[in-house]
């Protein structure tokens, strides 16, 4: 199917749950919100015409100005040789999503990474903990308002990039 057909099919099935449809973009995708993500994911995987059986990438973006976090899932169908993406927008203060690691095993580690770096919480994940940083790490470093650690277990850090401090001392 072409991206236009995929977007149309999702639009017909989910109506207003698809908040935006961009099949002609360089990155053909639809936008949705957190409460519809699980339904859309199941439909994308199990619908015979779509059959997205491969999760190529799952990552997250921080839109700090809109107070939103966004999950980006890039999907490929090995059966039909087409690809498509879904962007899931959620509230930055309560970033909770249902896990899709039972649909695509690749999502397991990617969701852990999204949690580690962006602080998105995934429900019903089989092994939900940080994947890269140590388990006692404070904060989620790829968030735009992350503050650098001044020290970690007695090892001093650099605070040159502490944007809050920079604002205090202009030039």
């Amino acid at each position, binding site marked *: 199917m072409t991206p236009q057909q995929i977007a149309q099919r999702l639009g017909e099935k989910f109506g207003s749950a698809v908040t935006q449809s961009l099949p002609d973009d360089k990155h053909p995708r639809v936008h949705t919100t957190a409460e519809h993500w699980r339904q859309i994911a199941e439909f994308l995987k199990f619908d015979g015409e779509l059959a997205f059986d491969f999760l190529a990438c799952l990552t997250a973006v921080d839109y700090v100005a809109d107070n939103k976090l966004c999950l980006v899932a890039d999907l490929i169908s090995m059966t039909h040789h087409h690809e498509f993406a879904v962007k899931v927008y959620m509230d930055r203060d309560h970033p909770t999503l249902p896990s899709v690691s039972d649909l695509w095993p690749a999502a397991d580690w990617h969701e852990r990474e999204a949690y580690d770096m962006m602080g998105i919480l995934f429900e019903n994940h089989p092994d939900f903990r940080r994947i890269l940083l140590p388990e006692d790490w404070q904060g989620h470093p790829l968030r735009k308002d992350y503050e650098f*650690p001044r020290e970690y277990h007695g090892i001093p850090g650099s605070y040159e990039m502490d944007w809050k401090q920079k604002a205090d001392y202009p030039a």
Partner: protein
Amino acid sequence: MLASWPIRPYNAGNFSHTRERHMSWIENRFEEGLIVTSMDWAINWARTSSLWPMTFGLACCAIEMMSFASSRFDVDRFGAGAFRATPRQADLMIVAGTVTYKMASRVRRLYNQMPDPKYVIAMGACTVGGGPYFKYGYHVVKGVDLVVPVDVYVPGCPPRPEALQEGLMRLQDKIRAQSVGLPKGSKRAAKLGLPTPAAAV
């Protein structure tokens, strides 16, 4: 978070610029004199010519370290080619690569497991002082000397294998200057009732 982190916080800055010399069983047992001088020569000859590094690489610098060990640069000429797979058999730790906060406790533990006398070469900008991650690396230790005492710093990103060879030779120079005897001046200090002077490192 989910589990507590099983390391003791270390006292940072302890090792920044000065260090206590790590001693093996034979050191500080003899007074200065002829016997010590010839024994020093023999012991230092043995130590300089069989520096066994630990097989241990953390990032891109480790690639240059491998090149330094292989036939083109051939570190076996300096007696440092026997890369050991365990810290218990190693004399030299070449910290080649980016040390993250998560890795710091492991580096420290490996260092503690090495038998004395032990030496550390900080290879590359990352281990010398945070390197390219000094400013923007929220997770990188700003120099491995905050975690373990460093004998020789080899700058570069990455340093060429020749540079690491140079670092190894400087370390050998340093070892050649060591003495197993009591530090210079300790006989006089004992006579005057002063504390034993610190060994030159």
